[in-house]
């Protein structure tokens, strides 16, 4: 009976530590690059990809205008927000009316795809770091949100949570209203500074604003949590907490 060769436990421990440290650095670096403006972000991402192998420019790049990697979008009316969450049960899209908190609906989406991380770990950092991607959300208009799941299925919901359409394939996004890009005249730097003062010790990412530029959607993350979504009402000087961000974790954990 041949004995199975064993790897010294000290070596395994060192490897695990190295992997863990590398992931920490990468996660911090990614968070940092997402805080800077678009042109700088591209450069920062390129540098990051060189310095920390395993990070590519696409990951650090800002999402295309109509796609929201953070899984939350503010409608053009400034009242409705859709965000995804999957902390318990099947993945959901929550549709919130900030002005009428009683009109707050959660709709179920098809179960998410799972990954066999254990099989790849630790040979492939990319696989280990593979994150569950929340569905992409786009407000078609202020009454209808389009949901595109990771598998490519699409469906539309009205603000009462009723499913308006279910079909495969991604529609022609160029026909839709561009996403909630923060207008330059909002004063993004001032807004960022203001929100960081209001949410100290949190990493604040502005996700968009409404057409009237009255409200701003943002994500505030702590050092250890996935973050919470907020809408900042500029005229009332009030922050409305919407809910927790979908917990982003490596699949299979």
């Amino acid at each position, binding site marked *: 009976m041949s004995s199975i060769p064993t790897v010294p436990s000290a070596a395994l421990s060192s490897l695990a530590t190295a992997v863990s440290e590398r992931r920490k650095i990468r996660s911090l670096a990614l968070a940092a690059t997402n805080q800077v403006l678009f042109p700088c972000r591209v450069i920062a991402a390129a540098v990051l990809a060189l310095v920390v192998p395993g990070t590519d420019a696409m990951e650090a790049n800002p999402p295309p205008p109509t796609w929201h990697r953070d899984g939350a979008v503010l409608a053009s009316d400034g009242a409705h927000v859709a965000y995804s969450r999957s902390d318990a049960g099947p993945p959901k899209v*929550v549709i*919130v009316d*900030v002005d009428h*908190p*009683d009109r*707050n609906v*959660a709709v179920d989406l098809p179960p998410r795809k799972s990954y066999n991380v254990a099989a790849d770990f630790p040979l492939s950092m990319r696989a280990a770091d593979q994150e569950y991607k929340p569905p992409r959300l786009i407000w078609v208009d202020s009454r209808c949100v389009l949901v595109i799941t990771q598998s490519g299925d699409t469906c539309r919901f009205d603000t009462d949570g009723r499913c308006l359409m279910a079909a495969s394939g991604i529609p022609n996004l160029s026909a839709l209203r561009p996403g909630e890009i923060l207008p330059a005249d909002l004063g993004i730097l001032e807004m960022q500074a203001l929100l960081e*003062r*209001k*949410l*100290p*010790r*949190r990493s604040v990412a502005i996700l968009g604003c409404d057409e009237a530029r009255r409200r701003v959607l943002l994500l505030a993350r*702590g050092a250890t949590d996935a973050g*919470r979504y907020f*809408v900042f009402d500029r*005229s*009332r*000087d*009030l*922050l*409305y*907490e*919407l*809910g*927790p961000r979908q917990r982003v974790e490596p699949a299979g954990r």
Partner: protein
Amino acid sequence: MNSPWRLLVVWTVMAAGAVRAIVLPATETARTAEKEVALPPMLVVASRLDWVHGEAPGFEVLSCCSKDATELFVQRISQCMAELASLVPEEFLLHASEPTLLILVPPAREQAMAAEMAKMMTSVAVSMNTAPHLRLTDVDSTAMYVVVDSAPREWLTGDSRGLGPRYLYFTLSPDFVRSLIQMRQPTVPDWCAVGLAGLFGSGDDQAPPPADGARLTRVIPGWYGPTNVPDADADRIASLAFNPDPWISRLDADVLRDNGDAPRPLLPMQELFAGRPAAGKSPDYQKVWEAQSELFVRWALSGKTPGGSAAFWRFARLATRQAVTEELFQSCFGLDYADARDALSDYLPEALRNRVPWPGPVSLPEPPELRAATQSEIDRIKGEWGRRVLRPVRSNCPDLLHFYVDQAKKALQGAFERGERDPRLVGTLGLLRLDTGEEAGARQALEEAVAAGATRPLVLVELARLRLKEYLQHPTAAPGNLGEDQAANIMSLIRKALAQQPPLRGAYSVAADVMSHLGRDPNPAERAMLDGGAQLYAADTALVLQAAKWDARAGDRDSAHRLIELGLWQSADPVIRGKLVALDQLLSAPAAGRR
């Protein structure tokens, strides 16, 4: 409202507008319907009532209600104060050496007095209302006028089913709690006073039902018990608690109770602790600030926070004397502002469902000893009430002021002319004369009262002020400076006043004026007195600045620096701030403290 246990709030302030119409002849009402004014009740001298007098710890009572009703009311108000002290440490509540004056009147007598008052004022073309219950505060004491229905003792044993909707009983209203907290010096932070008062006010009809679905009603304001268990009084009292948080509105509370993930507005902690929102903030912001103040108090007292309620009181205590910073907060609760905000947000749905436990009921104290009131007592208390109501009458309906002045004078001057020399009565007469602009007469009466042993802080301070004014006109030292004998005459009054509770701001102001006209620097004891005043009344930045200057001149850099920091924290006035900064720079210079 129809519940037999329903109690009506006794405490009503005129400004709140809760008033009841005087019974006026129909013709008169029609004639004067154009304008309606709210008036404080007048204890008409001509009314012949059988007054009884009594004393209980912290209270002096003049009542024309039945003996039972009077005893029960005084017992209940004493019990309420003890209950309040079981939740709020005494250092956060106003403590006054002067007893609170209680004037208790039954409804029938009140109507008779009101009719007499209306008859007296027929020449004035106004429609009148009087407040059935009124609390008037001076800087050193409180007086309350309460219309008390007969109060059956059965209520206390739980059998209250026979009580009518007009049943009236003493309660701890949010307004009363807030005034007791806010009148305490040094000033308790706004969020603390508003949050605690909100806790006591969470029992109105707008409060949402708790999660267990049991219908609760107000037994004692802020305390709730199940309505449908009339025979389970003992159990009910043992399980009393504050009702669930009413939050910003009934709708918002309902939504969040049903769905803990519903959106909710919350202020950053630094904005909550920055004090009442500025006038320019939106009404929504103001509402959120008030609701979050109460939420924070509930969270801190819920027993689920790091450090528990002790941490909360420690934080509140420190916040009375220094600027609230994240470090200060963290040193008390072990959380930074961001985590505390998140914790509050997470606690909110729970606060909307669950009640906050109360430390426990306090047993009913012994009834007060009652006896027939002497004419001197009746005149003194009527006169004191008559003097206090002048302020609201002057501001609300100055046309009627002379009626009230006449009534107060009749009571006090009449007794004085009959030979009554109770120092409290003479002191009140002096204060009345001062209020009506008779300064010479006021000085005479106040001097006589103090010579006869009056210890009321307001009497002492006002006499000190009058003495200072006269001495400055006729100084015994160099022009503009007081002689040592003159200063001693004033300072003896001030010291006596400051030995009482509460230490009055006016006493420190007069002392500071005396110090600035002495022609010498104050000695260490005098400086210590001013420093104490500046720390208590840090909002009086002129006092803080002056005390800091004296400390600097005496070379006491530490005291001066502490006061400068206090003044800079309190003052938004650029002139005062500039002076404080200049003084601070002077202190930092090598020759600081010497001129």
